[in-house]
């Protein structure tokens, strides 16, 4: 069996992909680059994890895909947020904020 990321990482990766798509539809490579840029190089994602996540998100109905021409007039599969995906992103962002705040409080408590 292939190694799976832990649940936390898995959930987080999904959230990050949704965030990356929040502005506009993007193709797989673009998403990878964008995540790397946004995290200032902390997250380097390989194609395997990304594509597994795309497949998962798409099956959950959070993103949709479509083959389109790129700016370099190459055909690529573009992923876009669905309405459901947007709602999920909002919820997860809120939840994440709450969790980070809570964890922060715990860590600073002592």
């Amino acid at each position, binding site marked *: 069996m292939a190694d799976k990321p832990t649940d936390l990482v898995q959930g987080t990766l999904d959230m990050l992909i949704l965030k990356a798509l929040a502005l506009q539809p993007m193709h797989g490579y673009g998403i990878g680059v964008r995540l790397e840029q946004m995290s200032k190089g902390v997250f380097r994602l390989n194609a*395997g994890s990304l594509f597994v996540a795309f497949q998962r998100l798409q099956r959950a*109905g959070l993103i949709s895909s479509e083959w389109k021409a790129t700016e370099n007039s190459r*055909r690529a599969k573009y992923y876009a947020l669905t309405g459901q995906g947007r709602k999920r992103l909002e919820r997860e962002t809120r939840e994440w904020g709450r969790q980070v705040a809570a964890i922060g409080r715990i860590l600073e408590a002592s």
Partner: protein
Amino acid sequence: MAFLRSMAVGFRSLFRKERVEAELDEELRVFVEMAAEAKMKGGMSREDALRAVRLEQGSREVTKEMVRSAGWESFLETCSQDVRYGFRQLRKNRGLTVVCALTLAIGIGATTAIFSVVDSLLLRPLPYPNSHRIVRIWNTFSPRGMTELTASEPEFLEYRETQTLAHVAGFALGSVTLTGRGEPARLSDNWGTSDFFAVLGTPPALGRSFSPDEYEPGHNQVVILSHHLWQDRFGSNPSIIGKPVILDGQSCTVIGMMPATFRAPTGDIDVWQPLPIAANSSNLGNHYLNLVGDLKPQVSLEQSKAELQTTLARVEQKYPAYYSEAVGLGVNLVPLREQIVGNVRPTVLVLMGGVAFMLMIACTNIASLLLAHGEVRKNEVATRIAIGAGRARIIRQLLAENLLLLLAGGAAGLAVAYVGLKLVPVEQSLPFQQVGPPSLDSRVLSFAVIICMSTGLLFGLMPALKTSHPVLNEILKERGRGAMGSRHQRRTRSVLVMSEIAFSVVLLAGAGLMIASLIRLLGVQLGFDSANVVTMRVSLPELRYPNGRSATFYKDLQEKVRSLPSVRAVAIVNQLPMNEVLANSSFEIEGRQLETGTNIANTQVISPDYFGVMRIPLIRGRALDERDLNPMPSTVVVNQTLARKLWPDEDATGKRLRLKSEAPWLTVVGIVSDIKNEGSRKGTKPELYFLYTEKSFGLWTDLRSMTLVVRTTSQPEQLVSAIRGELNSLDPDLPIYKLQTLEEIVSASTSQVRLPAVLLSVFAGIALLLAAVGVYGVLAYTVAQSRREIGVRMALGAPRQHILKLFLGLGIKWAALGGSVGLMAAFILVRFMRSMLFEIGPYDPTIFLSVAGVLGIVVLMACYFPASRATSVDPIVALRYD
């Protein structure tokens, strides 16, 4: 919603695999191109960029595999791989596969067949709505230990007023002759009172039920047919309803036909007719009514019984003179199912237990075979784990193999069950007439599936877990050590073998007890000679045989049959031996008052040659003679039991007795030796033999129906058509029925013991064989695994005897431990067989000792061959081996 989408996408990738694959391929290619382009912008050459990307991203195939295996559909795919692989494995080990599948087929098949019997007798509801509320109502008479007495009309009329039962109905059983439709046929007839069908809750399938006025005397010339009679005699023609048929020479209108699934509570019934009972009947002496009733909802059996008991007391008060002699009369209610299956329940349950044991042995055997096979495959498994297979996947693969085995075994098992039910004559000794035949219906099939699953878990999971759990370095270590396998594996195998032995001991003990019972039963001296005697019953309808004619008819018939070639002797009798219920009567003797209880005897009505035909020896005096008729009989012959009981110290001949005060005195002229008239399982009762006369002389027996008994010089079956011809020449409208040889009758009477004896022996035989195969297999395997050790021992000078003893000792240890556990279990379990046994106690020491002996011999035999093979090991070859 998301689930549905995931399903849809999953199916798409399953069924449009290439398309999905191509899309993923293209997407990945674009990804790599873009990544390379980005790098080329930094000044790399195209080649270097592509290489760098590949280094960064890993192999494209691995990526694709990751994406593929993330979906649920990949689970299905690997499963189908497992199945295909399992199939190949099974084909490769054809011998093992066949042995396992056969073992399973026998185990599952026998279990399923017996379960279908259990289901139809004990579990499935009887074929009536509210069947659990239907009860049989019996009078009881505790002073004589009688528990199933039929009721009289006044008693029935009073019971019918009950508050606790919704309906009470009476019925009487008999037979009528159907004429005018091909060969005359004797039909079993059930005369029921008005609520009979209401109690059973079943209306006719065609036509209507009896109307109230048809229960009036004189208006009851109507009949309802059974489904099978309607098929056999009326060609399933619905237009028969409303037409007349001739029953006992009288015209009766067919008004209905019962459904095919309807079963009479007493067994095979051909026709139903109304039984009129006058509302003011005071017929106290004739106790002929069988009673059934259905409890009202919320009423318990006990409540109803208590109520009927007080009802009976009311009847007793109403007719004090009649009941004054019958102090101790009571009422008993028996649930209908209990009435039907009560006496066969132990047999059926013991058979179920026996077959379950056999199945356990089959499972154990397969488990130990697979375990041994697993050891052989340890290297394969270790290699697979080494190159990255997960344990779950290995277990799944092994289970897939077992599942295939199970499917093959289960399917073959159903075939075994089907054939088994057809071949084994269960109908004869179990009451399927009343409950419907056993069948492989959906209930039984689901049982079979459950059995398959649980056996699969039993025999499959343990070896799979063990095989999938190799500790790699241990395998290497063991290969180096080459001893008799690790302690752990050895213990598992020993436990399996010992439990097989224990299970078969239990079965052997059960079978042994049944066989001993059967031998004793077959060895019972019946007191008559059953070889070469054919019997058949003839009934003369009252209409066509009025006074004086039936005696002439029977006389003519005997004479005609006597003149046939190869007929030795001919006689008639009112009732044949091996009959559970014989007509009996009370009587009185001259000069002495008999106590209640000693004045009852079975009443046999015979023609003078009966003792000759049956070869019943005369002990004293002479046989009956036609000249004793004047025209009523003046003489009687008694059996030894009666003579001994009534005149222990005197000569019985010359004494006089009579049936009741107004009947003529009869002189005892002879004493015949006892016969087992009520079947070999029962003792002989006092019996009186009277000469046949047409007019009853105080007897309660139907003298219009007599059984012809014919002793022949050759096979009696060949004579049947000749006898039928003679009968037809006398009266073409008389049916011959109950045509049987005396040997068949005797053999049928032992079927209650024979069926479990034969089946348990078969189970025990198979169990023993399986256990022997198991012992042989495991020991042979142990020997094969220990070749190195044997080689070392021999090289160091161990004599061959020593090696032989070493391995035989292993077998003896298994036999001793497994055998004693089995004997203990048997000791606990055989008490459930007590009611099935005949003249042998469940704890018979001979049986237990023989079981131990048989087991010891079989285990030693099974051990001898592998053990002696061990001694033939050549130390040089063995040490070089592996």
